[in-house]
Structure formats: structure tokens, C-alpha cells
């Protein structure tokens, strides 16, 4: 085997989501318990490239990261040019469940970051029994906005540059420069209006405060991990959310920001490995 070639394999799968056929790109590596990874708003599955190459994880887990439609190598649906993109809770849940079903995943673990962290709360609330465990990175039921999303897609402001510049403040100062800039590059490459459209879900369509009753963490464990430098979803936001969900486990991650798995994989694995070990032992 050529040691210059990474073990990650990428493929396309056709998935029907709410009567729309989507050609979804996904990458996977490993064998064992399916671990389905959800990227942040305005980015794509490349955020999980370090996890996908971590033998300590892929030895026990089939790690899968897919690009949501309209993101990365997953094209928008046919006719996309005639409408603006807005992610809704309904579509996000449907996409995850349809993708999981299309791959035939048996009670996967789902780990989502940011908007992915928000949607795992909804999954826990409405579809918990379908999942072995749920992990929310930078996750909370609600966050206070700190800028207007109108700035993310304007003809007189470079979308890629402004998206990256805004989120640059969410990366911890300790994160290696190489991975900081790789994380920001993903934002610079995002399609026009995609980050803004994802934040429709985050800011408008998914205020889950007071709506997470009935989550059975005994049946489906729920873990929330938040970086101390994240001021978009702060540790206080995650702690407040966990206090409304009996049995939810919260971890504060030192020297990490909003993109733990992408900005500093070495620091992140110190926190995620014990969680995954606990899940593997269930």
C-alpha cells in the first residue's frame, strides 16, 4: 500500500429527501459501529478528515462524513438556481435520516457540530430510538446572534472572505496555524448564500428552548462537548441546555473553539476518545 495515499474513501449516493433526489458525496473510513458526522454551517465534510484518519477511532467505528446538499461535492438539487437556499429543521432531519437509511446504517451514533450540534438535540427529542448515541459539539438549544446574516451574501461584499473572517474569531488562539487556515479555507470555498441559508435553521427555525422534553438519555446517551473559546455557542449555552435534559453529559474543552475536530485534532481527540470508548462499551 502506498503510504502517500490516505485510507479515506469517497463515494456518491443518490438519496431522496422530501421528494427531491439528491446526489450526496460522503467519505468513510473504518469498521464497526457507524459514526455519522455532521459538518457545521457553511462548510463541508472535510472538517472531519482528521477523525476519518484516526486509527484509534476507525478501529472501532465506521466513520462517515457526508456533504449536505448544496455543500462541498454534493450539488444542490435540480433547479437550485431559481431559489435561495434556506435550511429548515424538517429538511435537515429528513436528510440525515434518509442518508442513514440509504446506507442501511443500524442505529448509528450521530455526532454533529454547530448546526449539527443543534440538530442532534432535535434527533434526541423526536427520533432518539433510531440512534445508539448522540454527540453535540458546540451544541445548545439556542444562541444569541452576534452579527446580521445579511452580510454573508451581498454583491458588494466578497462572500467567501467575509464568511471566513467572521468565523476566524471562533478558532482558539492555540490551534495550529495550518489547521486554522484549512478550516477557514473551507468557508472561503462555500457557495454563495450557503452559510447564510444554513443559519436560517440556526437563527430562525430551530429555537429549541423549552422544546426538548422527553429525551431518554438512558436509552440513547447524549453528550455535549463545547470549546472554551467558542463565543457563538458558549460553554454556558451548552451547560444551560444540558440542565434541561436529565442525564445529558457536558464537557468543556480547553484550548478549543467552534471547530474542534478541524482546528486542533490533537487537542480534540483528548476529549472525544473517552466519549467514543464509553459508547463502544455500551
Amino acid at each position, binding site marked *: 500500500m502506498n503510504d502517500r495515499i490516505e485510507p479515506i474513501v469517497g463515494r456518491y449516493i443518490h438519496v431522496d429527501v422530501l421528494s427531491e433526489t439528491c446526489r450526496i458525496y460522503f467519505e468513510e473510513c473504518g469498521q464497526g459501529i457507524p459514526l455519522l458526522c455532521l459538518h457545521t454551517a457553511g462548510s463541508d465534510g472535510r472538517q472531519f478528515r482528521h477523525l476519518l484518519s484516526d486509527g484509534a477511532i476507525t478501529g472501532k467505528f465506521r466513520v462517515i462524513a457526508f456533504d449536505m446538499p448544496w455543500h462541498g461535492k454534493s450539488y444542490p438539487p435540480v433547479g437550485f438556481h431559481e431559489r435561495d437556499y434556506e435550511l429548515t429543521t424538517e429538511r435537515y432531519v429528513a436528510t440525515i435520516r434518509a442518508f442513514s437509511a440509504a446506507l442501511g446504517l443500524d442505529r448509528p451514533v450521530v455526532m454533529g457540530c454547530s448546526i449539527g450540534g443543534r440538530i442532534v438535540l432535535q434527533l434526541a427529542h423526536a427520533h432518539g430510538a433510531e440512534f445508539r448515541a448522540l454527540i453535540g459539539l458546540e451544541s445548545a438549544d439556542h444562541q*444569541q446572534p*452576534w*452579527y446580521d446574516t445579511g*452580510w454573508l451574501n451581498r454583491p*458588494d*461584499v*466578497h462572500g467567501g*472572505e*467575509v464568511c*471566513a*473572517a*467572521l468565523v*476566524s*474569531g*471562533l478558532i*482558539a*488562539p*492555540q490551534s495550529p496555524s495550518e489547521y486554522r487556515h484549512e478550516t477557514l479555507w473551507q468557508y472561503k470555498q462555500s457557495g454563495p448564500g450557503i452559510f447564510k441559508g444554513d443559519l436560517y435553521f440556526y437563527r430562525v427555525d430551530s429555537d429549541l428552548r423549552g422544546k426538548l422534553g422527553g429525551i431518554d438519555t438512558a436509552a440513547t446517551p447524549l453528550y455535549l462537548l463545547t470549546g*472554551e*473559546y467558542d*463565543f457563538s455557542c*458558549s460553554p454556558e449555552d451548552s451547560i444551560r441546555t444540558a440542565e434541561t435534559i436529565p442525564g445529558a453529559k457536558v464537557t468543556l474543552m480547553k484550548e478549543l473553539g467552534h471547530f474542534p475536530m478541524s482546528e486542533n485534532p490533537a487537542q480534540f481527540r483528548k476529549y472525544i476518545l473517552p466519549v467514543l470508548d464509553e459508547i463502544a462499551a455500551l
Partner: protein
Amino acid sequence: MSSHTTHTSLAERFASLAPHVNANACLVHRGRALTADLVVVVGTARFLLRIHQGEVAEVTQRFALFHPCALFVQGTAEAWERLWDQVPLPGWHDIFALHKRGEMVIEGDTRLLFSHLQYLKDVLEMPRHVPAGA
């Protein structure tokens, strides 16, 4: 260290910004489309920061009242001191983090701000990369 000495030290650090920005060719290149005057308030010290095509042309405390400016950036002394720490603490590490916690005010031509956001962040954070007293 007295608060007065701290304030003076912070003002001196900001006042000496120009050579450090201008020596960074990549940063100046990224700001090449920006020519603007900013008023930056560091604690109690008011500065006029004049940018010309990405270079810092002048940083001065001697300017007329109500001098026109594109952006007004005001921060508490603590905000700037912590922002300029070599490894800032969480919540003090970015101008938007400071704005969110109420330690910084950013007003004016917000289109200019967002159009040149990373450049302006890098300029305002520059003292972090210059040891105090350098």
C-alpha cells in the same frame, strides 16, 4: 502597576502600530483596496488611524474634534489589554467576542468593516504580536 501606567503602556503599544503593519507585505496586500480613517479609542486614549491602500499612514492622537471617520472602534482598557495578550483568554480574543460581551463598540460604515474584516482584525490585533516595550 498603576492603572495610569497600564493605560499609557496600552496607548504606546497602539501608537507604534504602523511599522509592524507596514512590514507585513502580505497584510498590506490584503488591505490594498482600503483607504480610510478610523477613530480608535484605547481606554481613554483617542487615536486617528489613517490607512492608505493597506498601509498605516499615520497613528496620531492629535486630530480635530469630530474629524470624519469611516469606523469608530472603542474598547475598554481591559478589553485591549486582554486582546493583545500573547495568548488571550476565552471571550477576550476577538473583537466580535469583545463586542458581544459589551467591552467594545464598533460603529460607522459597516459595509467597509465587513468588506475588509480580516484585514482590520489583523491590524487591530497587531500589538499582540509585538512584545510590550518593543
